[in-house]
C-alpha cells in the first residue's frame, strides 16, 4: 500500500432509481454470467459508462464504495479501503483490483468465446448427425423394401423351381413309361417273330426234304477235268488227326497274335518307362540348382535326398527290367511327387518374377525419369553449344570463303600454299637425289672391292693349294686315303674341313678353303661368297682375318 490518492470519480448524471436495478443486474451479472453471454461483451463497455452514471453519484459515493468493497472482498479481492481507516480508499489496491477485475473480465470473455465456439461446433455436429440419421433412416427403409422385394422374388423362383422339378419328374416318369411300353412291345414282336420264324423253318425243312427226295440228277457238277489244288497238295481225308491239327493251328494263330500284341505292349511300356525315367532325371536336375535360395529350398533338402535314394533304387531295379506292381507304383508316385514340386517351384518363381517386375519397374521408372530429365537437359545444353560452335565455324568459313573476294590476296594465298608445298617437295627431291648418289657411290665402291677381293682370293687360293699339296705330299706316305680325299666331293671336303678346323689354326682354315674352293668351283657360289663378303667387307675392311672366318661360315652354311 502506498500513498492513496483520492479518486475523482467522474460524476455522471444518473438517476438513483436506476441504480438498484443496475446493481441488482450487476449482482446477477457478476456471479452468473452464463445467461447473457452474447450481449455482455459489447454493451458492457457502454453499460460500464452508464453504470457509472447510474450506479455512483455524488450522493451515494460512500455507499457505492462500501458496496464495491463488500463485493470485492466477497470475491476474494483485497479490500479497497486502506487498512488504517475505514473510509479512506487504497488507490493501489483499487487499481490492483481493477486490474484483476479486468484480467478476470478478459479471461471470462475468452472463456465465453471458447464456449461459444464449442456451442457452434456442437450445433453443427448436431445438424450433421441429424442429417446422417435422416439419411440412414432412408437407406434402412430402402433396404427393407429391397429385402422384401428379393424375398418375393426368391419365393417366386423357388416355386418355379418346384414346378420345374415336378415337370421333370413327370417327364421322367413318362419316359420310363414309354420305355416300358417299348420293351414290352419289343418282347411281343420278338415272340411273334420267333413264331413266324418257326413256321418258316418248318416250311424250309419241308422244302428241303422235298428237294432232297427228288434226287435230282440235275444237281451235279460237270467238270472237264480236275483242277489241281492251288498249293499242289493232294486232298486229305478228314480224320481226327486232321481235326486235332486244325485245332492246333488255330491255337497257334491265336497265340502268335497275342504274343505279337504283348511284344508291342511291352515295347511301348519300356519306352514309356524310359521316358518317365528321363523326365524324372530332368526334373531332379532342375530342382537342385535352386538350392541357393534358402527360403524355398528348406523343404526340398530332405526330400531330395529321398529322391536320390529312390532314383538309385529304381535305376538298380530297372536294370533287371522288373515290371512288378510295386516298382511301377514307386516310379509313378515319385514322378508325381517331383512334378508337383516342380510345379510349386515354377509357381513360386512366377510370383517372384511378377513381384520383381512390378517392384523395380516402378523404382526404375522413377529414377530413370529423373536421370532422364537430367540427361536430356545436359544433352540439350550440349546441343546448343554444338549448334553455336557450328554457327561460328560456318561464319568463319564463310568469312574465309568470302574474304578472298580480293583476287590478289586469294592468289597470293594459294600461291603461298603451293610454294610451301613446292619447296617441301624440292627439298625431298634433293634429299632423295643425294641418297641416290650415295647409293651409287657405295655400289661402285662395292664392285671395286669385290673385284679386288676376287683377285686377292685367287692369289690366296693359289697359295693355299700349294700349301695343301705340300701337306698331302708329306702325308701321302702315311695313308692313301688322302688321295681319295682330293677327289672327293665338296661335302666330304667340308667334313674334312670340320675335322681339320677343330685341330688347325686360322691359316690352316685358309688352306681348307683354298682346297674346297677349286673342288666346288662354281661361279655362282663364288658370286654368293662375294655378295656375302661385300657387305662384310664394307663393314670390316681392315680386318683381313675375318674374311676367311666368314668365308668358312658361309661355306658351312652353303654346305649345310
Amino acid at each position: 500500500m502506498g500513498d492513496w490518492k483520492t479518486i475523482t470519480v467522474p460524476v455522471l448524471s444518473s438517476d438513483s432509481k436506476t441504480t438498484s436495478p443496475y446493481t441488482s443486474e450487476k449482482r446477477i451479472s457478476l456471479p452468473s454470467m452464463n445467461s447473457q453471454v452474447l450481449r455482455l461483451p459489447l454493451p458492457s463497455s457502454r453499460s460500464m459508462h452508464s453504470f457509472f452514471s447510474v450506479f455512483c453519484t455524488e450522493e451515494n459515493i460512500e455507499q457505492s464504495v462500501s458496496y464495491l468493497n463488500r463485493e470485492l472482498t466477497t470475491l476474494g479481492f483485497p479490500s479497497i479501503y486502506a487498512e488504517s481507516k475505514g473510509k479512506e480508499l487504497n488507490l493501489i489496491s483499487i487499481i490492483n483490483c481493477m486490474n484483476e477485475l479486468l484480467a478476470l473480465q478478459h479471461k471470462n470473455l475468452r472463456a465465453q468465446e471458447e464456449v461459444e465456439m464449442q456451442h457452434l461446433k456442437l450445433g453443427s455436429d448436431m445438424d450433421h448427425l441429424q442429417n446422417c440419421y435422416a439419411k440412414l433412416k432412408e437407406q434402412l427403409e430402402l433396404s427393407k423394401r429391397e429385402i422384401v422385394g428379393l424375398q418375393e422374388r426368391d419365393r417366386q423362383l423357388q416355386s418355379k423351381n418346384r414346378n420345374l422339378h415336378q415337370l421333370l419328374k413327370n417327364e421322367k416318369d413318362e419316359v420310363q413309361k414309354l420305355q416300358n411300353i417299348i420293351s414290352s412291345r419289343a418282347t411281343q414282336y420278338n415272340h411273334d417273330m420267333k413264331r413266324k420264324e418257326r413256321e418258316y423253318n418248318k416250311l424250309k425243312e419241308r422244302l428241303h426234304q422235298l428237294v432232297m427226295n427228288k434226287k435230282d440228277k440235275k444237281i451235279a457238277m460237270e467238270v472237264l477235268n480236275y483242277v489241281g489244288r492251288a498249293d499242289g497238295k493232294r486232298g486229305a481225308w478228314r480224320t481226327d488227326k486232321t481235326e486235332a491239327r486244325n485245332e492246333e493251328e488255330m491255337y497257334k494263330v491265336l497265340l502268335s497274335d497275342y504274343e505279337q500284341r504283348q511284344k508291342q505292349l511291352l515295347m511301348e511300356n519300356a519306352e514309356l518307362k524310359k521316358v518317365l525315367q528321363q523326365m524324372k532325371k530332368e526334373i531332379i536336375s532342375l530342382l537342385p540348382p535352386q538350392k541357393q535360395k534358402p527360403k524355398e529350398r528348406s523343404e526340398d533338402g530332405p526330400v531330395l535326398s529321398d529322391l536320390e535314394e529312390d532314383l538309385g533304387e529304381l535305376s538298380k531295379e530297372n536294370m533287371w527290367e522288373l515290371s512288378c506292381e510295386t516298382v511301377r507304383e514307386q516310379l509313378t508316385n515319385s514322378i508325381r511327387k517331383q512334378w508337383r514340386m516342380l510345379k510349386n517351384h515354377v509357381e513360386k518363381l512366377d510370383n517372384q518374377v511378377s513381384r520383381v517386375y512390378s517392384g523395380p519397374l516402378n523404382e526404375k521408372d522413377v529414377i530413370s525419369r529423373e536421370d532422364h530429365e537430367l540427361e536430356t537437359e545436359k544433352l540439350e545444353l550440349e546441343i546448343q553449344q554444338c549448334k553455336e560452335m557450328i554457327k561460328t565455324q560456318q561464319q568463319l568459313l564463310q568469312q574465309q570463303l568470302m574474304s578472298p573476294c580480293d583476287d590478289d590476296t586469294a592468289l597470293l594465298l594459294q600461291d603461298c600454299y603451293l610454294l610451301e608445298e613446292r619447296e617441301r617437295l624440292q627439298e625431298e627431291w634433293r634429299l632423295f637425289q643425294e641418297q641416290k648418289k650415295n647409293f651409287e657411290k657405295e655400289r661402285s665402291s662395292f664392285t671395286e672391292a669385290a673385284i679386288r677381293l676376287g683377285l686377292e682370293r685367287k692369289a690366296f687360293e693359289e697359295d693355299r693349294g700349294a700349301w695343301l699339296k705340300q701337306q698331302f705330299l708329306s702325308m701321302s706316305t702315311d695313308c692313301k686315303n688322302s688321295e681319295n680325299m682330293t677327289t672327293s666331293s665338296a661335302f666330304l671336303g667340308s667334313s674334312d674341313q670340320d675335322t681339320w678346323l677343330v685341330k688347325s689354326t686360322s691359316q690352316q682354315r685358309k688352306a681348307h678353303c683354298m682346297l674346297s674352293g677349286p673342288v666346288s668351283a662354281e661361279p655362282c657360289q663364288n658370286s654368293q661368297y662375294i655378295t656375302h663378303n661385300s657387305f662384310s667387307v664394307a663393314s670390316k675392311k681392315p680386318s683381313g682375318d675375318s674374311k676367311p672366318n666368314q668365308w668358312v661360315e658361309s661355306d658351312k652354311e652353303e654346305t649345310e
Partner: protein
Amino acid sequence: ASCVQYRLVVRDANTLQILQLYTCLDQIQYMEWSSDSLFILCAMYKRGIVQVWSLEQPDWHCKIDEGSAGLVASCWSPDGRHILNTTEFHLRITVWSLCTKSVSYIKYPKACQQGIAFTKDGRYMAVAERRDCKDFISIFVCSDWQLLRHFDAETQDLFGIEWAPNGCVLAAWDTCLEYKILLYSLDGRLLSTYQAYEWSLGIKSISWSPSSQFLAIGSYDEKVRILNHVTWKKITEFEHPATIVNTRTIVYKEVEKSPSAETERLSFPPTRALASSLFSTQSKYDISQMPVSLQYVKPVADRANPKMGIGMLAFSADNCFLATKNDNIPNAVWIWDIQKLKLVVVLEQLCAIQSFQWDPRQPRLALCTGNSKVYLWSPAGCVSVQVPVEGDFQIVSLSWHSSGDSMVLRSKDNFCVCYLEREEV
C-alpha cells in the same frame, strides 16, 4: 473282266484289249474272279447254274447245276478251288470242290447281309447260322472244310459278321433294332460286347481298320464310335452335325463352273464338243468359310430302313484316315484323321454320293455321285475329274485296281477305266 448279258469279256487291265470271250448259258447275274486270278465264275441265279471259266485253258469248262435247289448267291473260297453256293431260301450252302468234285453241305445258314466271312489269309471261314430261332456262328477250316468251332451268338437277330484283318477276332453285330456288337476270338470265346444305347435304331455299318487296331461302328444316330482292340472299349465318338463350326476342318464344296462358252461362237447345228460341254458343266472345288451348314435331309419317320445314320465307312489303307457318309447329309463325305481323332475334311458335293473307295496303296479317296465326274481327294488336295465321254455317263460305282494306278468307273450300261499317273519322284 466284264459281262454283257450272257457273254463274259475278259480284257487286259492296262490296255483294255479283249483277251477272251466266253459265252454262258444265261444272263449272268454275278461274276467273281478266283483268288489266284486263274478262274472266273459266272452265276446265273435264274437258271441255278454256275459256270466257271479258266483263263489259262480257254477250252476248260465247268458247270455246276443246283437244279431245283435254286441259287441265291455264289462265291469263291479263298483258295480258289471251291465254290460256295447258297441255295434258295437259304436252305443250305453247298461247297463244290473243283479239285475233288466233292460236295459238302452247310446247313441252316443265316439269311443275312453278311452271312459268310473269310479271314484275310483265307484260312478260316465263319458262317452265321440260325437254328430254332437262335443265332450260331460256325468257324470252318478252309483247307478241309472241317468244323472248328460252333458257338451261339448272343444276338437277337444276327445281321452280319466280319473278321478283323489279323484273322483273330470276329465281329458280329445285331440287327438295327438292337445296338449290339459282339467280339469273338478265333476259338469261339466271347471277348467283349459293346452296346452304346438301347431302343433307338442301332448299328448301320462297321469297318475294321487295316491294322486291326480299331473297329469303327456307324450307327443310326449319325455317330461313329471307335473301339480299340486292347480293351474293346469306345475311345472316341465322331459326330456328324449339319453345321460345322470347327475352324480346323477344311470344307471343300463342289461348285459348278459356268461353262465359258462365247455366245458369238455358237453355231448351228452346234458341234458335238460344244454340246457336251454345254451339258456337262465343269465343276471345281471351293473352300467354304466357317461355319458351314450342310444340306440336312430328315427322312420320313414311318418308313422302314430310313435313310439316316452312317451308311458308309471306310478306312484308308495306311490306317490314317476314315471316310464316312452320313445318310442324313447325303452330299457330304467326312474324312477323319485317325492319328489325331478329329475331323479333317468335309467334301460337299452337288449330288448325293453313290460310293467311295480308298486307293489300296495311298491315302487317296475316289468318290462318285452319279454324274459323269469322278472326284479324288488326298491330303494334298482334291480334284474333280470329268470323264471325257460323249453323252451321259453316270458313274454309279467305282473300284480301284490293287496297284492303285487305275480304277474302274461303272455306270449302268458302260464302264471305263481311269488311269492315274504316278508322280515322278
